[in-house]
Structure formats: C-alpha cells, structure tokens
C-alpha cells in the first residue's frame, strides 16, 4: 500500500504545501513569480536562473516538497525515488520562444533549444538531488489521476520506493502545477488512489 505524504500546488499567484499557503505573489516585486518562490526557498542554486519556466516550476515544487519532508534525500537510496510527470502541452512555451529565435532573431538559440523537451525538468530535478531513479514524462489530453495511479503503482512495484509525481501545466501565462510525493514506507498520509489525487489536486 502506498500513501500520498506531501503535495504542493502552484498557480499564477499562490503556492500551497499540503493545502497551506506558502507564498502569495507580490505584484509590486520586480522579480518574476517563480523567482519570488525561489527566493522564498532560501537556497543557493544559480542553475535555477538558466531554466525555462517548465523546469523552474517543477524544480520549485520539488524543493517545497523536500522542505516539508527533510528526510526525503537520506531516507531513500539514490535510485529509489521515481519521477513521473505529465502535462498536455509539452514544452510549448519554450518551443515558441525557440522558433522566434530563428524566425525573428535569425539566430537559433542553443540555450532555448535544450529546453524544448518536456523531460528536461526531470533531468534538472535529478541533477539537483543526485537521483538516478526511473523517469517518465507523458503528454495527456488533460490531468488524469488514473494515469498517475496506474503507472505510479507499477513503478512502486518494480524497485522504486517513493515517487515524486507532477502535473506541470505551465503555458501561455497560465500556471497549474500540482506535485505530490507517494511513499510506500510511510503510512502517514492519504491512500494513493485516483480519488485522493483528484481531491488533493483541486483540478
């Protein structure tokens, strides 16, 4: 049996961990919303500034989940935490920016191109935490709790002991990030099933 032990939501102007507000967007701040969240985390990770918004969103969510679960890194081996992420529009925002770089600016930008794959965020989170576990990024027409339960259960039955899962709806100015941690060895949470995912997600 597996349990959802932490969840994190980020929308256009608020961030919640386990349903409690962590930060509201300060409209007066010169910093972007994701940069405000990064500063709230109080970490030093300059690579954050190189990431596109999809990776920044996933990175921030993973850091807030770790903050709520400080033993996450020490408790599991470096290949026991699987990453299962999805959205419906792949890396569309960065794709559009990369296309502009060669159509309008006449110079295809390599630093944008490397972010034109949705699974790069999985690489960013893996690098940050030195996690060598299972990775999958899927594109689904809409947020589908069954997908996370079905494939998540498979991952948790084939060697992974925890799973960081996420729906990263970040495109055209909209932010709909829902990330959650599923653990097999920690019963201090809600049962990992489609009903609870739907309830927690608020999507």
């Amino acid at each position, binding site marked *: 049996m597996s349990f959802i032990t932490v969840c994190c939501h980020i929308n256009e102007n608020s961030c919640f961990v386990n349903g409690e507000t962590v930060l509201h967007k300060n409209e007066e701040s010169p910093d972007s919303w994701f940069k405000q969240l990064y500063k709230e985390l109080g970490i030093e990770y300059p690579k954050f500034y190189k990431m596109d918004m999809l990776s920044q969103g996933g990175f921030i969510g993973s850091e807030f989940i770790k903050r709520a679960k400080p033993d996450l890194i020490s408790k599991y081996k470096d290949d026991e935490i699987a990453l299962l992420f999805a959205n419906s529009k792949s890396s569309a925002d960065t794709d*559009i920016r990369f296309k502009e770089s060669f159509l309008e600016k006449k110079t*295809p930008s390599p630093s944008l191109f490397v972010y034109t794959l949705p699974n790069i965020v999985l*690489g960013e989170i893996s690098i940050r935490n030195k996690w060598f576990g299972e990775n999958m990024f899927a594109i689904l027409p809409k947020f589908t709790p069954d997908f996370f339960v079905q494939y998540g259960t498979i991952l948790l039955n084939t060697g992974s002991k925890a799973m960081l899962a996420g729906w990263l709806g970040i495109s055209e100015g909209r932010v709909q990030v829902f990330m959650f941690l599923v653990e097999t060895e920690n019963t201090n949470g809600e049962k990992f099933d489609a009903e609870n995912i739907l309830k927690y997600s608020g999507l």
Partner: protein
Amino acid sequence: MIFIGAEEIISPLGQNMEENFLSVYENRSGISLIPHAGFNDESIHLSKIAGIPNYNKFEFLIIDILEKVLKQVDPSIVLSKKTIVIISSTKGDLDRNISNPFADSITAFVKYFELANEPIVVSNACISGVLAINAAGNFIKSGLYDHAIVLGCDVISDFVLYGFQSLFAVSAKPCAPFDVDRDGITLGEGCSAVVLSSSKEIFQKSSFQLLTGTSANDANHISGPSRTGEGLFRSVKKTLEQNHIDGNEIDFISAHGTATVFNDEMEAIAFERLEINEKPLNSLKGYFGHTLGAAGVIETAISLQMMRNNLLVKSLGYKESGTSKTLNIATENKSSELNTILKTASGFGGCNASLVIRKI
C-alpha cells in the same frame, strides 16, 4: 509472459517492414544530402521520407503504421478496452500546432480507429521509444491491459534541425556511429510499431518474449552525456538483475550510437563497466539517421528482424574504433544465432533506458 512482435517500419528505406529490412540487409542508407535544408540555406545530410505529403505528416504516419500493424495481428484488439496505445515522440506534430503539438493528430487518430482508451504519449527525448515499450510491457504485466500497441514517430522539421545545428551537433557527412571520425548526428524521420500482448495467439507470425527493462537518470547534465556512463550503466544493470540475466547470455547489443563524440564514448564506458563490451554491437543510425522518439521502436523492430533471420547486421558508417574502451562493433553482416538481445537508449535530460528481448 509478455509477447512482442508484429513489427512495422515506415522510413526512407521503405514503406513496410520487409522493404526496410531488405535495405538494412543490403547495407543501404536512407541518408542523403538535402540541398539548402539547414539554417542559412546550408545543405545537410538527412534521412528524409520522400513521397508522402508534408501536410499533417505525423497524423498520416501514425494512422498508416497502425493500418499495417493490424494486418499482422488479430485486428479486433484495436477496439478492445483491454488495449492501450502508447505513442513515443519528442515533437509530435509541431509544425501543425506548436502550442499543442499532439492534440489534433491524436484526436484524429483515436477517431479513425475508434480506440476505446485514450493513448498515452511518452515524450522523454531519445529514450521515448524504449521507455514506451517498457511502459507497455509493465501495463500488461500488471494486468491493467492485455495488449499494447507502441508507435514511435518523429518527423524532420526546421525547428529540430536548426536546434541541433545551433548545438553544433549535426555531422557534415552521413553519421558514423562509434567511428574515430564521427562528428555528430544525422537527423532522420520515421515511424515504427510493435505490438505487445499477454497472448501469443493474436500474432499471425511468431513473436518474442519481452523482458521489460528500466530507466535511470545520469543526474549529471541536461544536454551532455555522463562521462562515466552512470545512468546507462545503472539502467542496464537493473534490467539484467530484475530479469535474472547474466551479461554473458546477451548475444547482441542494439546500442543507441548517435555518432556524437561524447555519446558514443559514454556508451563504450558504460558497456565496459558492465563487462559486456565484447558482445557484438551495432548502431542503426547510419541507416535511419537519428529518428529521436521513433528511434527506440525502429531499432527494436530491426532487432526482432535480426532475430527472425539470425543475422547480425553491420553497423553502417563504422570503420575504425573511436572510443577509449574497445567495443565489438559489427563491421559486416554475419549469420549468427541470436537468442537474447539488449536494446539501449540515452537522451537529453540525462535519461537512459534498456530492455531485453528473447527468442521463444
């Protein structure tokens, strides 16, 4: 047991599996110099499919390949609630709708075949194909589905070509995987399919056993392979352990072999660490180019054909060893009893995946 078969390929080398394997058997490449194809009008080597409409190409290919596949299996499985379709692709139908690159073509595809379940798109860079086959195998193993159809497809676009050019990753000549003079990838396009099932009765021809594998991240760099081959090493090690296979049982490795300096070196290091670097190995990129999300499926399909024909196919473009660890690269076609094949893939985002296929 999970059965795998009914492999199909559409590529510059042919419109179906038979034509494609014949081309590979004859060591013909789909790569040619395309004038003015690249950024700033540069002429570029590509493996590009001729004679199909550019309009909605992705949709055309995924429909066409499934039509072909359904002639090789019990066609009723396509309508079944116990069948899942998994599509592996990096960029889908990007030129049709960059804001939503999969929606239109997948909707049309679902409607055309009246699929009972919404397909899952696996978009995990260059391991998408191998990951999709593993996911399909896992879905069947778990009992959620009885059958899975895995389609891999990516088409060439200015977007992807200019991107690889901007990274200086495109070879000036047809790509030469593992060769000392390799200098980058040659992009390709193609579409390929395999069918997986818990029943061998659905296949018209013989099928093989899929031993589902694992994926592992390098945790090292988002666009450069690990210098130690860590993720690939871990993925293959786990795949072999979970299936209780000793490295010595592998008859052949269908490697990723993109022909970039660093990727091929990384693979050689990983295979040496795994002590399987003496096993015969090839990369099929010299035939098909790098077809990104389709590559893992195309290369698995060719591996099945190699097993059917007990023929080890030459690694096209390879002449002289160009990696720090010695590999046993197939320099010519060779008849060989192939019972157990290891397929690997690695990609941007530091991802790696592997699977094993066995003759029954």
